[in-house]
C-alpha cells in the first residue's frame, strides 16, 4: 500500500494505492479524511494510458536521451546567442511536483538568466496571488479547510465547488447537515450544482463581484463593524458600485455577512479569471481585513486553486513575476542573496513575460526557444488560434509530457517523455498550505524520466551542475532558499526541512507550512494586512450589438484540463459526453435545443451543441474549456476567448468574452460507435470519446448529402466477413446501420435530419454481448429494445446509475438522497453526483404538488 496525493484539483486529497493500482481515499490525510470524488476514484483507470510518450523524439523521429538533451541544449544555446536570455522561456504547469517546479525555475532564472517562466497557474489563480501580495505583502492563504466546517456562513464566489472541488464541497455539505443553522451563499452568474447547498444564490453579472463586495464593505462600515486597518479609508473611498441584483437578496447577503463573525469567503476561478481579478480578490479580502475576520477559526478569505500543485509552483517562484521561495526583486537584498546562494551572477534581474504576453512575444517572433512541461497551451490559452500559430513559429519548441496525444506535444520539435502520476516522486502543496508527498508505485515506462532530471541534464550541458541525486536533495535546497535574506517578515519558511534526510523525506507526513523548525506544523495565519482600493471596473471587452452575449468558460464535474487523462476514462466521459454550449432559453431566439451553434467573437469561434438551460443567466453563455483537437476539433472554445488580462496579475479574462451565437445549419446529425477511434475529420463537426468495452463514440454532423455521408461512414468502419443491418428513409434523412460478425457487434452508424437520435448508452452496452441474435438485430436499429423504455443518461458514475433508474426510484417512493441511495446505490460512491440527484428529487417535487 502506497500513500500518495491525488493529481487532480487543488484540494490535494490523500490516496492509498494498492499493488494493483486500486485507489482509495486516505483516512489519515487532513484534506479529505478518506473521501474521494469521481475523478479521484477513477484514478486507477488512468494508469495504463494508450498514447504514452515513451521515448524522446527529435523532429518526429525517435532519439536517444543524449541526442534529445543535446538538441535541447543546443536550441537554448542558439536562442541565447541570437536573442539573449529573454528570447528563451519555459511554460510549465501546476501538474509539476514542487521539485520539478523548483528545477524549472532555477533553470530559467539562474541558468538562462530570464524570468520568462510562467505556469498555467497564470490561468488559474494568478489574481489571487496578486491579491494576497497586495493585502498581505506575501502570497498567503490564511485559512485552513476546517474553517469551511466551522464557519456559520460560507460564501462561494465564482466557485462551482460541487464540481471542481467535490471533496471540499462534501465536507461543507456534511457540516451544514450537522449544523443546520449554517448558511451558504453562492455568488455566480450561473445556477451551478453548488447552488444545491445554497441558502441564497446571487446571480451577479460577469464582472460584478467587485461591486458586490464594495457594497458589502460600505454596509459593514455603515453598521460600525469595521475596525481601523491600513488602507481602509482609501478602500472605502473607492468602494463604489452596486451589483444589479434583487434589492432584497443583496440586503440579505449584507445582513448575513455583517451578522456572522465566523464567515469564510471562498473564491476561485470565477473571480480570478477576470481583467479585474486582482481587484476581486482584494475586494473580498478587504471585507475580512476590515472586520478582523481573518485567520480565525471559521473566518477568513479563502482562495482555492484549481491544480494539485499550483501552490507548490507559487512557493518555488515558478511564475514570471516571482523570484523563488517568496523572495522578491522588490525587496532589497533578496535577489542578491539568491544569486549568491545559487552561484548565479546572471540571475534574472526583473520579472519576465506572463503567459499571454509570452505567447504574444512568440507570435511576434521574439522567442527562440520554449520548453513546455505538462501543459497544453495550444488548447487552454485564450485566443488559442493565435497561440497555436505562435507555437508553430518558435524555432525550438520542446515539450515534456507523459502523453503523446496532446495538441501541444503534436506541435513540438523535441518531445521528452515525462513520468506520470504513480511514477513520479516528490511533493505537492494544496490550497490550505499542506505539503504532501506524491509517491511513485509503478515502474517508469519506456524511457520516461523525471522532469527535474531532464532539466538538470540540459543545465549540465549548459555548464551547470545542480548536483541533485534525487527529489529529496531538491526539496532541501528549496527549503534552504526560504531561509535566505532573513531575518525578514516572510511567513513562508521551510527552515525545518533544510536538514531533512532522505529517509525523513521518504516518510514525510502531510505538513502545513510555515515549518520554521523540524517537526513544526503550521496553522491559521494572521498576516499583517492592508485594505486595497478597488474601484469597480467593467470587463475589458464589453458586449455590443454585434456581440451581445458574454461567454463564460469553465469546467465539468468529471473532466480535468484538456482531457489528456480523464478523456480516456469512459465512465468519466459519460457525465457530459458532448461539447455543450449552455444558454438561457430566453436568449435562444430561433436556436433550438440540440442544434449546433457557432459561438463567435472578434478573436475566433467554436461550434458546440446547444443546451437550453434555465440555470444560465440571460445574456451569458457557458462552454467547457476541456475539448481539444483530439476529441472535438470544432468545439475548442479558447480560440474564441479574448486575450484580455488583469493588469496586475496578467490572468486572462476567461469568464467574459463578448460573443454572438449563430445557428449552424447541418444537413444531418449522427453518431458512429466503433471498436476503434476514427479520425476527427469524419464530418464538418465531430466529437469523439471512449466508452466502455474499448468502444469509441463519435458524435457527428455534416453538410453533405445524408445518403452520401452514410455510405462514407459505413465504408470507414466496414470489415471483411461482416454483415450489415441497415435502415434507410431517404425522404426523412434517416439512415441507420449496424455491422456484425458472427453476432458480435462491430459498429453502428446513425444519421438523422435532426439531433434527435436514440440514446447511445444502450447501444454501446451491446458491444459487450458475445452474440446478438437475429431477432435482436432490429432493436439495434431502433436503439432500444422492442418493448423497452428509451435508455437514459448516467448520473452516478461510480455505480453506473442512470437518470431513468433514479427517476424510477423517486416514482417508487424515494423522497430523499439517502432513500435514492438505498434503492439504486446512486450517490453512495464519491458523492459528486448528489447535487444532480437532488435536482431530480426537486423536479419530482415540483411536478407533484402536495
Amino acid at each position: 500500500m502506497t500513500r500518495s496525493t491525488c493529481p487532480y484539483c487543488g484540494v490535494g486529497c490523500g490516496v492509498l494505492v494498492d499493488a494493483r493500482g486500486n485507489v482509495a481515499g486516505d483516512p489519515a490525510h487532513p484534506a479529505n479524511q478518506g473521501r474521494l470524488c469521481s475523478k479521484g476514484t477513477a484514478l486507477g483507470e488512468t494508469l495504463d494510458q494508450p498514447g504514452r510518450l515513451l521515448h524522446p523524439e527529435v523532429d518526429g523521429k525517435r532519439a536517444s536521451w543524449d541526442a534529445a538533451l543535446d538538441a535541447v541544449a543546443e536550441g537554448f544555446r542558439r536562442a541565447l546567442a541570437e536573442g539573449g536570455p529573454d528570447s528563451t522561456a519555459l511554460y510549465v504547469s501546476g501538474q509539476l511536483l514542487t521539485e520539478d517546479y523548483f528545477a524549472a525555475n532555477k533553470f530559467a532564472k539562474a541558468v538562462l538568466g530570464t524570468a520568462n517562466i510562467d505556469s498555467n497557474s497564470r490561468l488559474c489563480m494568478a489574481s489571487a496571488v496578486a491579491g494576497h501580495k497586495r493585502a498581505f505583502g506575501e502570497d498567503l492563504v490564511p485559512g485552513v479547510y476546517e474553517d469551511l466546517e466551522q464557519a456559520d456562513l460560507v460564501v462561494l464566489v465564482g466557485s462551482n465547488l460541487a464540481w471542481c472541488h467535490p471533496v471540499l464541497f462534501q465536507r461543507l455539505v456534511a457540516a451544514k447537515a450537522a449544523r443546520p443553522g449554517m448558511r451558504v451563499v453562492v455568488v455566480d452568474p450561473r445556477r451551478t450544482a453548488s447552488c444545491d447547498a445554497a441558502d441564497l444564490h446571487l446571480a451577479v453579472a460577469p464582472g460584478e463581484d467587485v461591486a458586490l463586495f464594495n457594497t458589502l464593505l460600505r454596509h459593514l462600515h455603515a453598521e460600525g463593524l469595521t475596525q481601523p486597518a491600513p488602507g481602509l479609508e482609501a478602500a472605502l473611498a473607492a468602494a463604489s458600485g452596486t451589483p444589479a441584483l434583487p434589492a432584497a437578496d443583496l440586503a440579505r447577503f449584507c445582513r448575513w455577512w455583517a451578522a456572522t463573525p465566523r464567515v469564510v469567503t471562498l473564491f476561485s476561478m470565477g473571480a480570478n479569471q477576470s481583467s479585474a481579478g486582482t481587484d476581486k480578490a482584494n475586494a473580498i479580502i478587504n471585507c475580512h481585513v476590515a472586520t478582523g475576520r481573518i485567520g480565525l477559526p471559521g473566518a477568513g478569505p479563502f482562495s482555492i486553486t484549481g491544480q494539485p500543485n499550483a501552490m507548490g509552483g507559487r512557493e518555488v517562484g515558478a511564475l514570471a513575476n516571482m523570484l523563488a521561495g517568496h523572495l522578491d526583486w522588490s525587496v532589497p537584498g533578496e535577489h542578491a542573496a539568491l544569486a549568491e546562494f545559487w552561484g548565479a551572477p546572471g540571475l534574472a534581474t526583473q520579472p519576465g513575460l506572463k503567459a499571454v504576453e509570452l505567447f504574444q512575444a512568440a507570435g511576434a517572433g521574439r522567442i527562440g526557444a520554449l520548453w513546455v512541461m505538462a501543459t497544453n497551451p495550444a488548447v487552454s490559452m485564450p485566443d488559442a488560434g493565435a497561440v497555436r500559430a505562435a507555437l508553430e513559429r518558435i524555432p525550438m519548441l520542446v515539450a515534456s509530457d507523459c502523453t503523446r496525444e496532446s495538441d501541444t506535444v503534436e506541435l513540438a520539435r523535441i518531445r521528452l517523455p515525462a513520468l506520470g502520476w504513480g511514477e513520479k516522486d516528490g511533493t505537492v502543496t494544496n490550497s490550505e498550505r499542506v505539503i504532501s508527498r506524491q509517491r511513485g508505485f509503478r515502474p517508469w515506462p519506456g524511457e520516461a524520466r523525471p522532469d527535474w532530471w531532464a532539466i538538470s541534464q540540459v543545465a549540465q550541458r549548459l555548464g551547470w551542475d545542480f548536483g541533485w541525486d534525487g527529489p529529496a536533495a531538491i526539496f532541501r535546497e528549496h527549503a534552504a532558499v526560504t531561509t535566505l535574506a532573513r531575518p525578514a517578515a516572510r511567513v513562508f519558511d521551510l527552515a525545518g526541512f533544510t536538514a531533512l534526510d532522505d529517509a525523513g523525506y521518504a516518510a514525510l507526513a502531510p505538513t502545513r507550512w510555515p515549518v520554521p523548525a523540524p517537526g513544526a506544523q503550521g496553522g491559521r495565519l494572521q498576516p499583517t494586512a492592508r485594505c486595497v482600493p478597488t474601484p469597480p471596473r467593467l470587463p475589458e471587452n464589453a458586449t455590443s450589438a454585434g456581440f451581445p452575449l458574454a461567454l463564460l468558460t469553465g469546467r465539468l464535474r468529471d473532466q480535468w484540463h484538456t482531457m489528456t487523462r480523464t478523456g480516456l476514462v469512459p465512465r468519466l466521459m459519460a457525465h457530459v459526453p458532448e461539447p455543450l454550449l449552455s444558454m438561457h432559453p430566453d436568449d435562444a431566439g430561433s436556436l433550438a435545443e440540440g442544434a449546433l451553434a457557432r459561438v463567435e467573437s472578434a478573436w475566433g469561434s467554436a461550434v458546440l451543441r446547444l443546451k437550453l438551460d434555465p440555470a444560465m443567466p440571460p445574456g451569458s453563455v457557458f462552454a467547457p474549456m476541456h475539448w481539444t483537437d483530439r476529441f472535438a476539433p470544432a468545439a475548442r472554445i479558447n480560440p474564441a476567448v479574448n486575450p484580455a488580462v488583469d493588469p496586475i496579475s496578467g490572468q486572462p479574462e476567461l469568464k467574459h468574452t463578448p460573443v454572438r451565437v449563430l445557428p449552424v445549419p447541418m444537413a444531418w446529425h449522427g453518431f458512429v460507435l466503433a471498436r476503434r477511434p476514427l479520425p476527427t475529420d469524419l464530418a464538418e463537426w465531430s466529437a469523439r470519446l471512449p466508452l466502455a468495452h474499448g468502444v469509441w463514440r463519435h458524435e457527428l454532423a455534416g453538410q453533405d448529402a445524408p445518403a452520401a455521408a452514410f455510405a462514407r461512414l459505413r465504408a470507414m468502419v466496414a470489415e471483411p466477413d461482416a454483415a450489415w443491418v441497415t435502415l434507410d428513409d431517404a425522404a426523412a434523412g434517416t439512415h441507420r446501420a449496424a455491422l456484425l460478425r458472427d453476432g458480435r457487434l462491430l459498429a453502428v452508424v446513425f444519421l438523422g435530419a435532426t439531433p434527435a437520435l436514440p440514446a447511445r448508452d444502450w447501444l454501446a452496452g451491446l458491444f459487450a454481448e458475445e452474440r446478438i441474435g437475429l431477432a435482436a438485430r432490429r432493436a439495434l436499429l431502433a436503439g432500444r429494445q422492442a418493448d423497452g423504455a428509451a435508455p437514459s443518461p448516467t448520473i452516478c458514475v461510480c455505480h453506473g446509475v442512470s437518470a431513468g433508474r433514479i427517476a424510477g426510484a423517486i416514482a417508487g417512493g424515494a423522497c430523499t438522497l439517502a432513500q435514492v441511495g438505498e434503492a439504486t446505490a446512486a450517490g453512495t460512491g464519491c458523492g459528486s453526483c448528489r447535487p444532480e440527484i437532488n435536482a431530480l428529487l426537486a423536479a419530482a417535487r415540483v411536478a407533484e404538488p402536495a
Partner: protein
Amino acid sequence: MKVLVVGAGPAGTRCAVRAAQRVPRAEVTLLSAELALPYDRVALSKLLAGEAEVADLITHPVAELATLGVTFRAGVAVAALDRAARVVTTQKGECLPYDRLVLATGSSAVRLPLPGAELPGVLAYRDLGDVRAMLRLAAQGGHAVVIGGGLLGLEAATGLAARGMKVTVVHAMGWPMDRQLDPEAGGLLSTRLGRRGIRFIMPAATVALEGERHVQGVRLDDGRLLPASLVVMSVGIRPNVALARDAGLEVARGVVVDDAMRSSDAAIYAVGECTEHQGRLIGLVKPALEQAEVAAAALAGEAACWQPVPDSAALKVSGTAVWSAGEISAETAEAIILRDEDAEEYRRLFLRDGRLVGAVLYGDTADAGYYMRLIAEQRVVESRAELVLGSSFMDAAA
C-alpha cells in the same frame, strides 16, 4: 334445388361443399374436367420438387364428398350452356339441368404464340397433368428453360432443379416476380435461387422454340440459343370464359360478377379465377375461397357480400417468405428500407403524405397483417423508423 358447380378447383370444390351444407334440400353436383379428385393446386410445386406424392395433394376423397352431400363427377367437360333452359351440355352430349349454376372454370396458362410452341416438351405449369409430364422429362436430366419468372415459373424452376435439371429462367423484366416484388427483393430472390444452380436471364425475350420432333432449345431475341429438353411456359394466366361468353353472360376479361358473386344471369354465379369483380381479376387461392363462401351463402338465400381486401400477396417461394401489398412502385411514394444481410431479410415500405400505401416484405413476413391494416386505415404514421422495424417497435413508441 339442383346446384351444379362447373370446375373442381379450390373455389368450385369449396363452393360445392358449402352449398351442400347450407342450402336446404340442395342436390349439389361438382363437375371436373380433369380425371383427378379435387386436389390442392398450390401444392403442385411440392409434388414437382419431390416433397409430396399425388395422394398427399388430394383434398377431398370421393367418400368424403359423398358424405358432405356432393356428387362428384370427374372427367366431365362442359361444352355448352343453355340459360333459358337452365341446362348444360357436356362434351359427351349429356344434358345436366340446374336451378343454380356456379361457374368455377378457373383459368388457363397463357401460351405464347411462338414458333415451335407446339413442340413436344413445351409445357405449361398449371395442373396435375402438366406436373406429371414435367416429371417424366425431368427424369432424363438435361437442360430446362422456364419462360416467365413469376411465382409459378420460379416454383417450376426450383422443382426441376431439385429433380436434377440445369434450369434457366428467362424473364421479360429485370427481376423475377415483378408484380409482387420490387427490384431489390427480386434481386435477393434471384441471387438466392442462383445459389441453388438456377440461372436467370433478365430482361430477355424468347423469339422461338427450336427442335424437330421435340423441343431442343430456346432462341432469345439477342440471338442466343439456350439448350432445353424441357420448356415450361409460365407467362401468366387467362380466365376460362368461353362457356360464359358463348351463353351470352356479361364477360369482360372474366365473368363479371356482383358483390354476391352473381353473374348477369341471376341463376348463375361465378367464383375463382374466372371471375371479374369491379374490373379486377383474382389470381390467388385465398380470395377465390372467400368468393366460394360468399356464393354459397348467396345460394342459401343469405345476404352475402364479397369485400376484396387491398391486393396483397403472401407467398412462399422455395422456402423464402415474401409478401407485398398496395402500391409497390417507388414513382410517387417515399421508400423506407430495412435490410439484414445475414438473415437475408428485406423490407421496403412505401409512404405518401405520411401514410403507408404499399409494402414489400422479403424473408420475414410476420408484420404483414400489421402493414395490411395500416394500408387499409390510411392513418398518418408518426414514427417512420420504427414503422419499418415492425409492429413491436411501433407499440412501444406509441
